[in-house]
């Protein structure tokens, strides 16, 4: 079934623009198509528009991070017909919906020594969680929720490396205890990743991988109960 969407689309070209702006589009599209198809339609209206393509293509719609292969029908049911399209990080935009993802891949390097190269696609699969967190913009060096979800998977896949992996994510200045809940910042709901992060925190508290004042402080809280 076709429907008319009122779109406000983030536009920015790092090569020529000083500031970003939002361009209006009114597009009629079949609801059964995907967000990717919507992006392609915007491109046909404005040839200068660009967006990420492929399996990891993602963006934010009305503030929620999502992969572009999701169905438009669900999006319209959740947000209505008026949509704001933005890149995963407006600060890291290079061209419209395309961003520089170097910071995301730098996080993988933190665990690179304890996992296999083959595990990298799984890490990439958590990209939207990395950019959904509001902590990323407020706390320099924050490891990010994608790394925590990935670390949870890795301690189960490589149990012999559990201690090393937990040592990385337990970092009191950049690690897992700075995570804030992001169920509502992910489409569809990120409850599964939230569960993984809760379990991972429990693992850190059980194993206490190395002397860490924050973990000691939390252990004291638990003992007081």
């Amino acid at each position, binding site marked *: 079934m076709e429907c008319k969407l009122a779109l406000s689309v983030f536009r920015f070209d790092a090569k020529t623009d000083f500031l970003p702006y939002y361009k209006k589009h009114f597009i009629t599209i079949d609801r059964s198509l995907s967000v990717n198809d919507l992006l392609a339609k915007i491109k046909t209206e404005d040839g200068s528009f660009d967006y990420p393509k492929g399996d990891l293509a993602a963006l934010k719609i009305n*503030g929620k991070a999502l992969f572009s292969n999701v169905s438009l029908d669900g999006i319209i049911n959740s947000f209505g017909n008026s949509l704001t399209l933005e890149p995963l990080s407006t600060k890291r935009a290079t061209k419209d919906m395309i961003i520089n993802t170097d910071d995301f891949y730098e996080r993988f390097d933190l665990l690179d020594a304890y996992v296999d190269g083959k595990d990298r696609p799984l890490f990439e699969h958590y990209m939207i969680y990395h950019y959904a967190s*509001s*902590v990323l913009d*407020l*706390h320099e060096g924050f490891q990010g929720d994608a790394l925590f979800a990935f670390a949870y998977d890795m301690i189960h896949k490589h149990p012999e490396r559990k201690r090393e992996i937990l040592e990385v994510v337990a970092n*009191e200045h950049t690690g897992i*205890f*700075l*995570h*804030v*809940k*992001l*169920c*509502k*910042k992910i489409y569809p*709901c990120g*409850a599964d990743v939230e569960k993984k*992060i*809760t*379990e991972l*925190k*429990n693992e850190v*508290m059980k194993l206490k991988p190395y002397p860490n004042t*924050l973990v000691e*402080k*939390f252990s004291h*809280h*638990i003992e007081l*109960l």
Partner: protein
Amino acid sequence: MKNYFLFDTLIQREKTAPMITAARKLIELLGIDAPSFKGAKADLGSEFMGLDKLKFLEHYAYNLTLAADQKRDILCFEQSSFISHAQTKDMLINDANLKFEIAGRLEKHNLSLNLDVQVVSLEQLLLEELEEMDTEKLTSLVKHPFGNFQAALFFGSNACRARKYRKEELVTRLLDSVQLKCVKHESSHESDGFEVYDASSSLAKKLAAKAMLDMFDNAADFVLVCDARSFIMFDFYQKELEKISGREIGLSVLSLAELLLLAFGETSKKAIGLDQHKVAISLI
């Protein structure tokens, strides 16, 4: 009519005392059978689940059992305690191994795990539970409608969990009954920062300040919070949020019980607990 225990051992009671005073007053005003839940363990906040899941479940299972044994449901007037109790019950009912483990732990306190108890939020109580109360009856109690004000309704990032156990629309229905308009803002489900306060107080304050400034910039007259943790961050720490953000905020913070009492005509700041707020309430 059902019997309840009013769960009033909120998280950080020294900072959430106004919410407790207002809830007790509201229950008294409406003539609801809900004495203070004596002997209950204080709320820890769902953050504690991330530190020690089993201790968290044992803690709230203790309260559930205590109330069930006395054949009273648990009335929670804010989101933090509501989520923790409701989620514990849900997890234990749906996981036989966990239930067995927690039952064993409670036996050491000479308690036999009893989950035959409902966890009820204030809005559920007023709009769904009480047979003699409905939107019409509530509207008839309103002496001072809030038609001239617009609030920023803040649920926080924990609301996602609460939604499984109660409908968010119930809060907005209550607000309709007192004719309060709400401003649109993007922070309604953002973090209030409380969850990271122990790990980084500066990050916590930055998160809270970001949400507060968004509500301020959207022309809210005051902030209506659903969770004791949000109350702590927005009222108790507001001066520090101003310092960290370099901007004046000056936004009053009200809980649902305080708002209803004001609408029902209660004007004594002391009786409602408004005199205990850090940020003065100038609505009266």
